[in-house]
């Protein structure tokens, strides 16, 4: 039985919401980052799912975009972790609620 495209989208939506809620509700900054990554990959999954609905040649475009996203996400994770480490050195805390330096 062929996999229905809509199920892929539903799975992607569930993953995205889990990621977003993790990012918002958790105070530990590492969990926030993990949530962001999850949401990102949910979007990748969604792209792949949509690309499957297209005929052969055209579907390649939908599969390539996630590859780029993964590459960018790797870089983003690098930078994000490095920033977290630096902030931790300054604040001695991984609690994102303590990071209130942005207030003017």
């Amino acid at each position, binding site marked *: 039985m062929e996999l229905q495209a809509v199920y892929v989208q539903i799975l992607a939506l569930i993953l995205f919401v889990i990621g977003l809620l993790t990012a918002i509700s958790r105070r530990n900054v590492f969990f926030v980052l993990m949530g962001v990554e999850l949401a990102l990959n949910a979007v990748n999954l969604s792209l792949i799912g949509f690309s499957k609905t297209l005929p052969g040649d055209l579907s390649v475009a939908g599969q390539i975009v996630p590859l780029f996203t993964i590459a960018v996400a790797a870089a983003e994770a690098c930078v994000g972790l490095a920033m977290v480490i630096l902030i931790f050195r300054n604040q001695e805390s991984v609690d*994102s609620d303590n*990071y209130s330096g*942005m207030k*003017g």
Partner: protein
Amino acid sequence: MTNLPLWLIPLFPLIGTVVLAAISLASTGSKKGASEGIVGGLAVLFPLLAFVSTVVIGWNMPTQGVQETLGTWIDIGSFKASFGFLFDSLSRIMLLFVTGIGTLITLYSTGYMHGDRGFARFFAYINLFLFSMIVLVLSDSLLLTFLGWEGVGLCSYLLIGFWNADVSNCKAANKAFIVNRVGDLGFILGMITLAMVSSDLLSYRELSAFLRDAANVELVNILLPIFAMAGLLFFIGCTGKSAQIPLLTWLPDAMAGPTPVSALIHAATMVTSGVYLLARLSDLYVLLPGVMTVVVLIGLLTAFWAAVAGLFQNDIKKVLAYSTISQLGYMFMAAGVAAFDVSIFHVFTHAFFKAALFLGAGAVIHALAGEQDMRKMGGMLKKTPVTACVMIFAFLAIIGFPGFAGFWSKDLILERLYVSGPMGPFLYMMALLTAVITAIYMGRLMVLTFFGKYRGGEESEKHIHEAPASMLIPMVILSLGSIFAGFLWAGLIPGANLFEQTLAPVVGQAQAAFGHASVHVSPWLFAVLGTIAAVVGMAVAWKLFANRRIPLPKGSSAPEGFGATWTFCFDKIHGIVISAFRVLAWVAENVVNRFVMMLQWLVGGLGELLGDFASGLQVAKVRLQMALSLVGVIALVLIVLVYGGLL
């Protein structure tokens, strides 16, 4: 046909500059400085090589000239300029006397500058000057000419202020540089005006071809106002470099430099580059009768004014400086009636006799250990006979005594002025009157310097000596030039118009296009009248000054009384202009600037208020911010879904 490459000519003085500058820098530490023999030898060698290569290239030159493009200089969008040299009959003549007289004067300088601590530095500057001058003359486009134009201005500044221990020399150098800057601005604006039409027009050949092409007649007529603007602006550039009204005050002050510099830069070569530029752009100028009228009137006024001002000078070099300004006025008059070949011919003969006069004056100053005031000279004929003979030949040339160089060129100018049109007879009369005054002030110089009795102290009389051979040889060669150079275009002798034939490929077409009134007057009549002018002037000078008691100087050699009003006239006018600009500057600082600052504060204050307001909206918590931005995104998506867009 194999020929030497053109870039060889400017290369030699450039090498000379680098080598001599290196020697000069290397010897700053030592007390005595580098050996004068080696430095002097090198300094003369490189200009000589440039002269030799000019002769070789000039000998093999085809009639239409050689153009050599070395590469692209600027290429941005619609503006293109290449870096190239143009060697045609006009640049050949200019180069021959620039490098030739340059070599002679460098040789002279090795004697004149003997014992000066800045010996190597001086010759580095001289070589740099020759390099810039060669670039100015040899370039194939206005842009590269401007590079040389600025280069010679820089060297002029460096050499006027060469003895920089004296602050008045530095002031004179500054004055020359700043006054020239006003003219250079005209040159730049002129180039921009031309480039607005097309950047190709900056190339001399392209410009001539464009203006001469019969297919472009209508286009040229439409563009005529732009060309008139460009022509006028270039002429302002020329008035700066060639010391014409109104930018002439720097040249008399420029005499603060060493005398060979005055001879080379401020008499023979650099100041004539304005005339050269007019001849180069002859195709442009012949289309602009209005601008040509301005040129001829400025030339006339300058020639007359400077000649009268020259009557009152006591400093021997200042007389020659005013005389240079006056002669340049003649050249501009000739250019203004589209007699470009005649004006270049006068540049050529003038280079010989004025260089000889300056070098002679330098030898006199050298003999008197630095004395420049003519009232303290006199009777030098017996003490320095060779110098006196050189000066007398050059004197006869400048006043236009029959047979000498100046006679032929000045006569041609007068003749062309007379036949130039309705204004002709008036121009001719004024020019002839100026010629009489020229003979008077030059006669005064000769009488005060060489005749009568020595008026300096007895102590200094014993030290008077003739100049060394290294100074005398160039002087004698130049005096021979001022006797015989005129025969290259002797109007009275049929067939002796080599100079005219040489220049014809460059300026002939333009001159024919300008059209002359077909008045035919016998050239003999002009010759006779010119001779009478010279003789009358000489007689007047002899009568006025030969037996008169010369008042002894009271310290300064500046003219006093009535003479001072003539001499300082334009300095005063410049002063008024400058104070007008000071008022403008005060207004700009205190009114305009305040207003602009007020606007700045207004904008800045508004920005600060907005920023404070926005930063108050920030919440402290990162998570809350993220949630809020999510809410914002959802709101946007909803708006898009419901209304199908924000607007």
